[in-house]
């Protein structure tokens, strides 16, 4: 039986009227969930899980996965419009998406986000369709040393991201790392840096910090600048979409890189879409001919994280379907659904549940096509939100942010953390400290530390384990190269004849 006949069968399952309806409902709900900061795809899927009891397993997984895709599409909306990341993986989208919106180009930024999200998804689904089982095998070769090497590479791609002052970048990176150590340490089994507060034992949630630093900080700045969001005169038309699409061929390498990177990092259990989106952004900037434009409203800076995030979302389902191992928290909740539907997750699912697996794969194609059409037709609507007077919009944003921050861990302390980081975000912006390194360090610090310590335990304390395992060694070498790249470039520029001074780089 060829993959193609399976795929056609899957598409026919997914195109059945009730499954199609379920997909549309899921996409709409998912988009709304993605827009609300903090609520997130994981919570959304968990909330809808009980409803799936009444559906067939195939319709149920289509509903939940459609919610997931919707959330990935929707996460970009608030990032671009209000600088508030609706989902962790859309933090990198704020770096360039929000500046674009401020320039009155919200329509372009949204179109770029949705389109690249769709392309990333489509390529990832094709990879999923043809290579799922062998890729799952390869993913199992990735243990703690390999994960550490990959995460180190994520850090490496971000060196030099902060802009002009390396000391400020370094300071923010260490602050982020410091914050990431708060909470429960898996390796020792003990809470640390919690100052006697039980609520802090779950760690400082990266989403809460991001909502505060980016969203609230931005509102404070706007208040100071005179209660006005720029871009009120934004042109609202479907021409934006066409204009944006014309730019896409230029970003082909960014898209290819983002998709492959995102898909693969999504497949690895224990990493997920967020590091993928950061890495893709960092690499796009590193390889760009004009990295100084990043952070100021470069369309490529929206394309890179979005392709990677959506590709990673698809990739995360791969180990779930093929091995019964969730690749992301959202996938973990879906896995609970398998038991409800009477399915046995694991390697035999592909053989035993043909309708389910191929129906899911078929629905990935259809749901993402429907999804992108859905969100693209709404671009003018979303973009027009910025026309609402700031006096009305700001309180609404603050309320939504607060609900979102509370929803992450169901604790009131997070509201204070959000407020605190809002003030910090304002101060940092004023003093020219870059926010991106802090957020990257906070989100990756925890995983990186855990992977490193697990690997060191496995290696009986010797760091040689990172270099003796072939996959790990390759990634370590790549990270070292990337770490040194800015230095190499500096030397290169010094050696070359003098060029006109580059314009000062604005802080992300």
């Amino acid at each position, binding site marked *: 039986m060829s993959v193609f006949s399976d795929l056609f069968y899957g598409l026919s399952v997914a195109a059945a009227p009730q499954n199609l309806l379920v997909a549309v409902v899921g996409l709409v709900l998912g988009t709304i969930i993605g827009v609300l900061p903090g609520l997130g795809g994981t919570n959304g899927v*968990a909330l809808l899980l009980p409803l799936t009891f009444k559906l067939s397993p195939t319709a149920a997984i289509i509903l939940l996965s459609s919610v997931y895709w919707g959330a990935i599409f929707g996460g970009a909306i608030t990032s671009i419009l209000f600088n508030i990341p609706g989902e962790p993986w859309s933090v990198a989208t704020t770096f360039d998406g929000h500046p674009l919106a401020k320039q009155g180009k919200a329509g372009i930024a949204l179109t770029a986000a949705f389109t690249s999200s769709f392309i990333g998804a489509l390529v990832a689904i094709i990879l999923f369709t043809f290579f799922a089982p062998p890729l799952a095998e390869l993913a199992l070769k990735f243990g*703690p040393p390999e994960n550490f090497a990959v995460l180190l590479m994520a850090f490496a791609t971000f060196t030099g991201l902060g802009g002009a002052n390396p000391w400020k970048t370094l300071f923010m990176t260490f602050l982020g790392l410091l914050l990431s150590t708060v909470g429960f340490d898996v390796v020792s089994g003990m809470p640390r840096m919690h100052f006697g507060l039980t609520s802090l034992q779950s760690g400082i949630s990266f989403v809460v910090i991001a909502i505060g630093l980016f969203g609230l900080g931005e509102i404070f700045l706007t208040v100071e600048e005179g209660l006005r969001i720029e871009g009120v005169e934004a042109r609202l038309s479907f021409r934006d979409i066409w204009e944006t699409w014309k730019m896409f061929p230029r970003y082909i390498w960014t898209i290819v890189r983002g998709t492959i990177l995102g898909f693969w990092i999504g497949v690895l259990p224990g990493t997920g879409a967020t590091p993928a989106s950061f890495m893709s952004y960092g690499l796009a900037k590193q390889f760009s001919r004009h990295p100084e434009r990043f952070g100021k409203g470069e369309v490529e800076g929206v394309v890179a994280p979005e392709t990677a995030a959506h590709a990673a979302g698809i990739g995360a389902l791969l180990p779930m379907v093929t091995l019964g191992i969730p690749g992301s928290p959202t996938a973990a909740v879906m896995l609970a659904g398998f038991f409800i539907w009477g399915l046995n997750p694991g390697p035999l699912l592909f053989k035993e549940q043909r309708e389910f697996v191929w129906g899911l794969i078929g629905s990935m194609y259809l749901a993402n096509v429907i999804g992108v059409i859905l969100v693209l037709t709404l671009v003018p609507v979303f973009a027009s939100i910025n026309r609402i007077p700031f006096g009305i919009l700001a309180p609404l944003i603050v309320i939504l942010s607060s609900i979102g921050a509370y929803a992450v861990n169901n604790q009131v302390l997070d509201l204070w953390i959000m407020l605190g980081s809002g003030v910090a975000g304002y101060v940092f912006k004023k003093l020219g400290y870059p926010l991106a390194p802090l957020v990257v360090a906070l989100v990756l610090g925890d995983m990186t530390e855990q992977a490193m310590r697990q690997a060191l335990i*496995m290696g009986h304390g010797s760091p040689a384990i990172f270099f003796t395992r072939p996959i790990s060694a390759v990634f370590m070498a790549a990270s070292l190269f990337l770490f040194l790249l800015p230095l190499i470039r500096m030397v290169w520029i010094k050696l070359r004849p003098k060029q006109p001074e580059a314009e000062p780089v604005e802080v992300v």
Partner: protein
Amino acid sequence: MKGARRWARRGLILALGAIFLLSTGTRLIDAAPTFSPTRPIEWVIPAGTGGGADQQARFMAPLIAKYKLSPQPLIPVNRPAGAGAQGFLYMLERTGSPHIILITLDNLFTTPLVQVLKKPDGSRFTWRDMTPIARLLLDNFALTVRCDRGWKTVADFKKAVESAPPGTFKMSGTGSKQEDEIIMVLLEQTWKVDFTYVPFPGGGAVAAAVVGGQTDFSVNNPLEMVGHWDAGRLCPLAVFASKRIPFGKWKDIPTMKELGYPIEYQMLRGIFGPPQMPKEAVAWYQDLFRKLLDTPEMKDFIERGAFDEAFLTGPAFERWLEEKERTIRNLMIKGGLIPKS
């Protein structure tokens, strides 16, 4: 005349007494729950999304709705901070409420032992601060290895471990100073060997590490590894239960005890209420979960996950909890996971 009236009065008193006795008697026999929830019930999971306890609560909550066992929905809420500490302390805040319950795993015992949990009044938190409702299931542990490593029996495995330098064999386990590590320490002490413990954040990742050859073995819960077993990747060598698991392929897997290694460990999957939960509410939840265990979906789940169905309530449950807590404390002290105190 006077005597007759006195007799009449006595008769009346007796009759009233009889009615009283009868009425209480029927209540004792019938135990009809007089409580019924009037608000949605919060179901606290003292662990993260995707873990064993989380999967079970999220599996049971819709089942309860499907069979209309409760007039109000049960809403699972994760409060995972501090290895469950956040969830336990949250229960104290809701003292006396009949609309909140908690699903437990063994962190109910280990967490308060590893990190002393302080109640608002400064004293130490234990499970006694909550209202025990029922023990539902006991989760098993299986000594799990990759099938292609050539260890068909525990004896093969033990021989391989003994012939390698100490610490060569790596075990992946969930978290630190919790069930998995306790079992590993027991195994080390019984066999007089040394393993290297590599903590992972969840049971799925633990099993994947063995499949991928990152570690050599694990003591996974059946539900976490049975998919890999079906696919011929992971093989259980023995279970740590007191008797063999009576389902399907598990019937052929020996217990550690019958192989001559007296190591027994099972994990509690039970339900607790907040402090001073009304008695009628406790009875209502007991009735609810008793009925839930009898649904066909639950039977399938129990078989799939190789659980021991172990419904137990009241003083017997409390005695079991006392015993279990004592055992865990002794094991942890013996294994050097917590200081003697």
